[in-house]
């Protein structure tokens, strides 16, 4: 396969970026998208240029490190697939592919396609935990949890924290991420004692990071590599209002 890549290059946080064009002539359809970028980077190194910087690690769709917008879609065109699991057979010979970093004010570009997603960590630090010290837990079967509740909590917990929801949202909102974290705990008995404080603290942090507001486009759900449902946003809204009035 021959491909033309139109890639965002930006030296660092404070520099201005621009698109650069690259041609690749021998792309195998069996390559993953990141392996295709590896080939480009080896080429660039041979030419004495600097490789395109991108975040990646596990390359099996679970660490949530890879973060790029491919032809206008975070993680590219495949449903419920991270960039690292996207394969080149999904593209056509001769195609031009535009690759941009995830775009949002709270995700500043660090270099090329790498963005700073520590805002997510701070949202979690605001309350995304159960305050239980090591050793002070009861026997795990002491509190039965209905399978339905456990399964649904899992659906929320499946979030890999990649930020595609923010990148896809026309408003740059982080509601899907935040609500998935809140939802996981809200659905489990362990999360109940801190439920109100948690939802308020985490939403507060989310707002102060500068994420946008949800206008229910559901682009986040479509982009989420783990298929997390926007029902968690509805749940968070309800929880948040309830907590605001009864706290």
């Amino acid at each position, binding site marked *: 396969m021959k491909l033309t890549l139109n890639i965002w290059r930006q030296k660092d946080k404070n520099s201005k970026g621009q698109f650069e064009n690259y041609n690749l002539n021998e792309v195998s359809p069996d390559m993953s998208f990141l392996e295709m970028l590896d080939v480009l980077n080896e080429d660039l190194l041979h030419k004495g240029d600097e490789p395109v910087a991108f975040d990646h690690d596990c390359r099996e769709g679970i660490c949530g490190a890879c973060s790029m917008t491919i032809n206008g879609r975070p993680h590219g065109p495949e449903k419920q697939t991270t960039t690292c699991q996207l394969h080149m057979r999904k593209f056509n010979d001769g195609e031009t592919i535009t690759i941009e970093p995830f775009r949002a004010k709270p995700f500043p570009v660090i270099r090329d396609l790498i963005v700073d997603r520590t805002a997510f960590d701070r949202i979690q630090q605001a309350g995304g935990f159960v305050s239980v010290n090591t050793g002070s837990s009861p026997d795990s079967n002491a509190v*039965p949890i*209905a399978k339905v509740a456990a399964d649904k909590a899992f659906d929320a917990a499946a979030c890999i924290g990649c930020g595609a929801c923010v990148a896809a949202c026309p408003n740059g909102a982080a509601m899907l991420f935040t609500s998935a974290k809140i939802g996981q705990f809200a659905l489990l008995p362990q999360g109940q004692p801190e439920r109100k404080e948690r939802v308020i603290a985490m939403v507060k942090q989310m707002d102060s990071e500068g994420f946008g507001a949800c206008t229910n486009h559901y682009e986040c759900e479509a982009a989420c590599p783990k298929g997390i449902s926007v029902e968690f946003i509805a749940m968070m809204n309800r929880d948040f209002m309830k907590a605001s009035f009864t706290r």
Partner: protein
Amino acid sequence: MKLDSKTPSGPIAQSWDKYRFDMKLINPANKRKFKILVVGTGLAGGAAAATFGELGYNVETFTYNDSPRRAHSIAAQGGINAAKNYQNDGDSIWRLFYDTVKGGDFRAREANVYRLAQVSANIIDQCVAQGVPFAREYGGTLANRSFGGAQVSRTFYARGQTGQQLLLGAYSALNRQIAAGKVKSHTRKEMLDVVLVDGYARGIVTRDLVTGKIESHVGDAVVLATGGYGNVFFLSTNAQACNVTATYRAYKKGALFANPCFTQIHPTCIPVSGDHQSKLTLMSESLRNDGRIWVPKNKGDNRAPQDIPEQERDYYLERKYPSFGNLSPRDISSRAAKQVCDEGRGVGSTGYGVYLDFADAIGRLGKHAIEERYGNLFEMYERITGEDPYTTPMRIYPASHYTMGGLWVDYNLMSNIPGLHVIGEANFSDHGANRLGASALMQGLADGYFVIPYTIGHFFANNPVDKSVTTSHPEFQKAEQEAKDKINLLLSINGKRTPTSFHKELGNLIWDKVGMARNEAGLKEAIARIPQIREEFWANLNVTGEPDSLNMALEKALRVADFLEFAEVMAWDALERDESCGGHFREEHQTPDGEAVRDDENFAHVAAWEYTGVGNKPTRHQEELTFENVPLSVRSYK
């Protein structure tokens, strides 16, 4: 050097309790006077840092990822073992202990393994309390499954992402401590060196991966939780950034590297598709519960799998190991696959693959049942290979997955350098020569939540800390300068080859000669070849960019440079361990039908290697292992 494991004496079932009682304690008000540096924030590091914070210590954590949540613990699929006996099927601490020692082919320290089995139950309690959504039965109790050929159902799981859920649990506990101000989290910082002052590990030197800044950090103890070295093979199931640098740097500062040749090869990975391959993707071992593994009986049979009649297929695992069949342990299944491929009967474009066929299971249970059980795995396979496993058999091949070897530690999980503790996959302690399925998560969390928080207090209580040491101490300055010099050197070679090309070359060599099956000639060849590659690396490397900015090629070069030295230690260990055991298979030591033959007389010990200079043969030390509770026996899966 005498290796004192500090293993408590007396009956093993009471040893940890007794030891805990005998340990000195630190007054709660005094704990805040100690600072612990934790390098690596996966299951072991994250759990340890969170627990240290809860206890009142001051903690700083370091990870090269952008968030602690991305450590490669996240990728574990299958589950975590615990001796809860919730299924009433005869499990017990003793049985988990027994299975682990035996599964490790009698190369692990009994007391450590017993402690691991003992605290395994607490881990599950802790994780559930944190809100980890484990799989449950309709009655609301926790579900279990049997895993990796275990005869009891003791594995707890969270769909196919147990590792991620457990890591998120530890990460949430860590976040709580970060919010409370007890833990300071450093992200995108890679450790380049450990700093010793007066023989004690007192700090580390890191490189900020965004600004390139070389920084020193001082503490009263250092805990390495930096994972394994599986990427020495270049292709492995490890994440791209996994590396040996932290543990190797400690080794160069005098810490002993134990059993580096004990590496685990996982039998069910998606085979290599071409030169571009950057990693191998693991398919959960649970697939072997319903899939049948086979290759054509005849060499070079290129027909489509559907066109190969039943009588011309060789279900080699079922043939060789009738009682365990397709569920034979990892090392046995892996080697059997390599053997048939070496015979020229492998499948797929490269000839390095075997079929994992679900046709019978689909015929017996229906497509729907298979979809229920493995739907997400089948989807993943199709995404990667473009083939539909419902209609055509999967192709699988073994890949490097886990490394049992690691820095030598005593019962306190402290290396031979005072103050330098090593936990999780980074140490060597619990799995012996082979790790059982679903035991890696267990060990990481056991070390982090329930062992190191006690033993580190014991260390502080016994070792007065020199509080006058700061980062301006000459040792820190020296380590910083060395790191800077090395980086400048790498950037100034201006050769022709990329760091990745060297990594690939090294990986291929190690996979061929120090991989699934090893022999004396091959190992000697590797020992001769590695220095040559290393020499070329330092003469012909091409790294572009600057030292003081985000520089992926430089990061890679730094890691490859250490792999190029470490690989030699691994090869030496494999050569000197003149027996077959667990993941270490020496072709010279096998039964006529290809089973590993252990040499307990001469090798029932831990081999711990001491650094003697680059290119020199390291010194081999031994810690003898005694088996008083699990009698030495031959592993048989026939």
